[in-house]
């Protein structure tokens, strides 16, 4: 089976293009744009980890190492497409248009972090594993029935493939030829559980055979493979050819969340090694160097810009108006039920009394 689903690479670890077919499309402009997004997402992620350590945001879910998956796939989307992310996909969300401030607010436990920018169909991250897959199938059917050319992307991890909702989502989408790309980030661990314990198969891509849809295994640390293969899958979707399952093989360098200690269940030497060899950013650097596109000054400038963006977002998050407790009551229904209205009123009254 593994042989039937070879890992597709466009850019190899050394930074060489190994699929000449894509050579022409890989312009300097595209490469620089990708690179910019890659380092932006990485810098944001690192900042978040340090904000969490300082107690300025809550538990945080880092994605360092998975930037190519998230950036490459998000850049493949059209503006009108839908994104159904998990808790680890704020790299993709930011690349698709969610602001840094919103990202930070989410991790600060604020519902403001769930509101996408105007016109952007970014659904809030799904915390219960795999439950977003049926939503994506349904949203995609809706686009199809409306007769648009919009498509849907939905993210999920290797662990998520064990849940019933994974299966039900893919089956539903396949039966109705829904325009949706099931984008799996196979970082090879579900918290502490390695893929070998999660499933007997050696690939996730082969699970597509159970739904008679294309399944594809790609190097998830190769931003070009991710970008082109996701674009092609989205094209298929837009053309009425139905869903695709993409397995992007990757690795998270760090902990599952800031509450997790990966050394309990795996050798962190592996992460160190991978940073040197398969890192998604390094290989684009190597490629740019090969091409003679590498420009230290530009890189410094980009880093400076991103730093400024981050600092501004952090500042914005920190001077954001205090969480308004009323929000908890006001958004449950379009019109609050008497139960909620009474509970709110009683609580506010009591609180006012306490403050006096």
């Amino acid at each position: 089976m593994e042989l039937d689903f070879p890992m597709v690479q466009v850019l190899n670890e050394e930074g060489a293009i190994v699929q000449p077919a894509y050579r022409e499309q890989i312009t300097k402009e595209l490469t620089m744009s990708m690179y910019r997004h890659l380092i932006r997402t990485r810098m944001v992620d690192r900042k978040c980890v340090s904000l969490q350590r300082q107690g300025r945001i809550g538990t945080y879910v880092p994605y360092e190492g998975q930037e190519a998956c998230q950036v490459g796939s998000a850049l493949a989307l059209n503006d009108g497409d839908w994104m159904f992310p998990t808790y680890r996909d704020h790299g993709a969300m930011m690349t698709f248009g969610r602001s840094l401030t919103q990202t930070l607010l989410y991790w600060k436990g604020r519902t403001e972090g769930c509101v996408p920018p105007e016109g952007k169909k970014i659904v809030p991250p799904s915390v219960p594993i795999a439950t977003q897959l049926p939503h994506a199938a349904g949203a995609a059917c809706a686009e199809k029935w409306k007769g648009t050319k919009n498509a849907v992307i939905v993210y999920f991890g290797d662990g998520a493939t064990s849940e019933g909702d994974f299966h039900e989502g893919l089956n539903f989408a396949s039966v109705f030829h829904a325009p949706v790309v099931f984008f799996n980030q196979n970082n090879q661990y579900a918290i502490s559980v390695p893929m070998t314990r999660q499933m007997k198969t050696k690939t996730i891509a082969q699970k597509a055979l159970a739904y008679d849809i294309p399944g594809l295994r790609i190097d998830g640390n190769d931003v070009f493979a991710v970008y082109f293969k996701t674009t092609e899958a989205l094209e298929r979707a837009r053309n009425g050819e139905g869903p695709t399952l993409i397995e992007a093989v990757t690795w998270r360098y760090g902990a599952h969340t800031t509450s997790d200690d990966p050394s309990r269940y795996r050798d962190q030497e592996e992460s160190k090694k991978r940073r040197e060899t398969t890192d998604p950013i390094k290989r684009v650097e190597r490629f740019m160097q090969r091409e003679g596109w590498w420009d230290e000054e530009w890189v410094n400038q980009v880093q400076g810009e991103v730093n400024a963006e981050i600092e501004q977002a952090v500042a914005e998050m920190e001077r954001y108006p205090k969480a308004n407790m009323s929000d908890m009551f006001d958004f449950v229904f379009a019109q609050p039920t008497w139960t909620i209205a009474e509970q709110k009123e009683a609580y506010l009254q009591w609180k006012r009394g306490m403050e006096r």
Partner: protein
Amino acid sequence: MITKAGVKSLTIVQAVNDALRTMLKEREDVILLGEDIGKNGGVFRATEGLLEEFGEERVVDTPLSEAGFTGAAIGMALNGFRPVVEIQFLGFIYPAYEQIMTHAARMRARTRGHFTVPLVIRAPYGAGVRAPEIHSDSTEALFTHMPGIKVVCPASPYDAKGLLIAAIEDPDPVLFLEPMRSYRAFREDVPEGKYTVEIGKGKKRREGDDVTVIAWGAMVPVAMKAAEEAEKKGIYADVIDLRTLYPLDKDLIAESVQKTGRTVIVQEAHATGGLANDVLAVINDTSFFYQKAPVERVTGFDVPVPFFAYEDDYLPTPARVLHAIEKVMNF
């Protein structure tokens, strides 16, 4: 059967069908999904004729997967549709519990109203029709404890149509419970075309000053029968049909209990954790000192809904309700 101009005499299941047809005509965004609802017209015929009339893209036979099609319907609701899904029997809703609990009910709150899920989940519920096991659950209380979803349960054809249309027009998710046992039990005049019955409002089905009897769904006829029997003994009962189970009609309950001071609640579900206890809480909070006797609850027992050979002993009967009425009267 048309009885007069603009009115038809319908059973509950026909009223449901009529409501669905009306709304499929009225709104392009309404879409039905479920198992066997298309070609087969639903195992109870609630969707009969709708596939033929509205086509495969609006009346959708789905794969056999409650979490899958409920989840997909959530995605459709996010994307501008108003899906009405049918769960074949309430006892088969549990695979979709996660989708309803975490997503349908919470999406608006999580996104400050940016994303909403105007979804209706229809499910026949309850015992009393000699169905195979697991087909007879009446677990409304598992949903009234789920913030973000309303729960509606009509007892009559008129209300079934009006409430279902109201549920479809509601901007938030609604669980719509249909009393299987009453599906074809009687007819009532139902207006043609669109009308709504307000969600959140109960209805007094009978007036009396001595005792308040509160029921919903398939227990309403049981309560009514008991009230008739009580009248023969000179006891006059207010019978309240709750109609909406979340949010309860607090004012209607309080007004009646404050008048009578005596309450009997009739509930098909298991005693512990049942909706009757929510009614009890409303009485405690609004009408405590009006009470002349402890509230009597006539309920199913704390046992799994039994196989049908035992269901007559599980279900509240008019005789049991009458006994409770006499008990609160003689307290």
